[in-house]
């Protein structure tokens, strides 16, 4: 092991973060047998300047832990190898990046057409963490050298990511952690704490939902007796999402299952409303997917529509916004929910 070079802290501060991370990736890609933590800290650019041979390197070790997380977040497969006969010993644990797991498989390529589509798909995410993820995905795509057929000028699609619960839930999904959060069900006065195994985050009709499995108190979470699968609306998560212990594996395409489930709920949910002809309500509700016109528009001032919905409370909010343009005919719970809302608004503004 060579001695440290340029070990003053002022020299160390001149190595930018990306140079340290880049040097770490290069060093770990170049090694077959792996490097111990001590070897990394004492030799790799950005660490070696701060390394004290035989001294206390606690800060540097913490830095290395954070850097490992950052690198793994980028999809770089940083793996550890136990020394034979010395398993579990941190000092002899070796780190490396296996080339085969790091490199994009050589049979994967993207055509100019596909590149155009991927550019458009990335454009969908313009807020929240997914915008950073798609930006980095596009950099890697560009690395392959393909250029898009045509610049995508005709479209500017966007999916919103504004629920505060999205980021912590998405992190928990990624790390396979159980989460707890306070959930306010409509009609209930107080939020109730839920503990669940997150399965998927899906956006359906403009709203983000968490599909999750309830943790049954006292039950072994790895047992076959699984808790009920439920769907939670992110906007009803009214407090912080707390990550907990590791969640048991739940293989399957949960996102597709959750979307299919919501589609079924949507198909079953049927409401009948009367709308004033030529009103905004008639136009907007009439142009919605699945809406059926029950009475012909023939000089009448009102027309009857049949709508599909997933969540009665959300539909009630929406219909209340149309004020006198909408009269709910059925179901009675929806009628009740809309009247209650309108009366509340009157009271709040009287």
């Amino acid at each position, binding site marked *: 092991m060579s001695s440290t070079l340029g070990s003053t802290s002022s020299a160390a501060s001149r190595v930018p973060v990306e140079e340290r991370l880049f040097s770490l990736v290069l060093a770990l890609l170049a090694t077959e047998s792996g490097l111990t933590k001590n070897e990394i800290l004492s030799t790799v650019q950005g660490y070696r300047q701060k390394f004290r041979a035989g001294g206390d390197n606690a800060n540097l070790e913490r830095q290395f832990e954070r850097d490992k997380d950052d690198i793994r977040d980028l999809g770089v497969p940083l793996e550890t190898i136990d020394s034979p006969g010395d398993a579990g010993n941190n000092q002899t644990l070796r780190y490396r990046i296996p080339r085969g797991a790091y490199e994009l498989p050589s049979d994967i390529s993207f055509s100019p057409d596909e590149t155009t589509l991927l550019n458009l798909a990335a454009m969908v995410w313009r807020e929240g963490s997914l915008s950073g993820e798609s930006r980095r995905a596009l*950099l890697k795509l560009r690395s392959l050298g393909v250029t898009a057929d045509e610049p995508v000028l005709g479209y500017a699609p966007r999916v919103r990511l504004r629920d505060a619960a999205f980021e912590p839930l998405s992190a928990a999904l*990624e790390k396979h952690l159980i989460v707890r959060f306070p959930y306010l069900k409509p009609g209930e006065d107080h939020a109730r704490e839920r503990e669940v195994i997150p399965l998927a985050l899906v956006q359906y009709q403009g709203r983000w939902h968490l599909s999750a499995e309830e943790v049954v108190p006292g039950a072994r979470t790895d047992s076959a007796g699984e808790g009920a699968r439920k769907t939670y609306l992110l906007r009803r998560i009214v407090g912080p999402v707390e990550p907990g212990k590791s969640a048991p594996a739940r293989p399957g395409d949960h996102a597709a299952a959750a979307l299919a489930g919501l589609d079924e709920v949507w198909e079953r949910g049927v409401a009948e409303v009367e709308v004033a002809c030529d009103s905004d309500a008639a136009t907007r509700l009439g142009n919605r997917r699945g809406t059926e016109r029950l009475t012909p528009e023939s000089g009448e001032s009102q027309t009857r529509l049949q709508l599909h919905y997933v969540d009665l409370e959300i539909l009630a909010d929406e219909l209340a916004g149309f004020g006198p*343009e909408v009269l709910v005919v059925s179901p009675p719970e929806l009628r009740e929910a809309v009247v209650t809302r309108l009366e509340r608004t009157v009271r709040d503004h009287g």
Partner: protein
Amino acid sequence: MADRAQPLQARDKLAFLLSLVPWLMDHDGAKVSEAAEHFGMTPQQIREAVELIAVSGVPGETDAYQHGDLFDINWDAFEERDEIVITNLVAIDDSPRFSAREAAALIAGLQYLSALPENADRGAIASLMSKLSRGASAAPSQVGVEGAVPSPIDAVAPDPLAPTLALIRESVERGVQLELDYQNSQGQRERRRVDPLRIESIDTDWYLRGWCHLREAVRTFRLDRISNAIITEQPIEHRATDSDVRLPDVLFEPSPDDLEVTIEVVPSAMPLLTDYIPDGATTVEHDGRIRTTLRVSHYHGLKRLIASMPGVATVVAPPSARAAVEEWAREGAARYR
């Protein structure tokens, strides 16, 4: 693309360095400007990255980062002609895989757009998604988005907006004007002639951005308020690239004629109102509610917005705005008595 370049975080910079090296290997002697164009960066960002790569490497057998352990470039070509020639390569042979979340973001974006007319070939989309999965370092995270492009061939129910979208798409492609009836939120309908510039969406809502010949300005049209649209043979007169045409990134642009109202809102509902809250608006927390300012173009929009958030948002001032909301809700409730 260079004008869209943004300052990068350390993670972005690392992703960029790992992506740039294989591209440079395949594009020996590329100009700085070509690389900038290709990666959507500024030439300065490319130069800084190349300078960093050129002094990076592995500790090597001596642990001392000796000459052969470092990347090297032809410095003369770089400094005199802005050309990038790598003369020594270290450690990297190929492009990196996507992370699980990167692949998931692109897959979910593709799902959202799956019904675009351009994506008529569903098999091609499926194969693209599976390539992204295989190209990720771990199984893509479970994020899904409902396909939200109005489609005539939806299995559950065809979307009534599909014909309008197809028409607009065709007019954008051919660069010809559209004629359409547009109904505002008060139910008034007007025939408009529009140079279509861009199709935009937010979640499930679709919009046409275009130059309105009636208003002589760029206007945003909700697709579900458009009817009787026809394509004309008249070429468009204004283009997205014209200097007097500006397509802003936000859908709702503040105007000097906007009305300001004071509202109180529960904190969890603030994200629903961000579009209407002007930059720099003061927000005060009071009794668990946030008091802030909204900008609206007229009370017709405001009363609908507030009535759709009962108990969640309340107008505090001015009195005329409170009265507009109260009257709207009272007329609505009266229909049930």
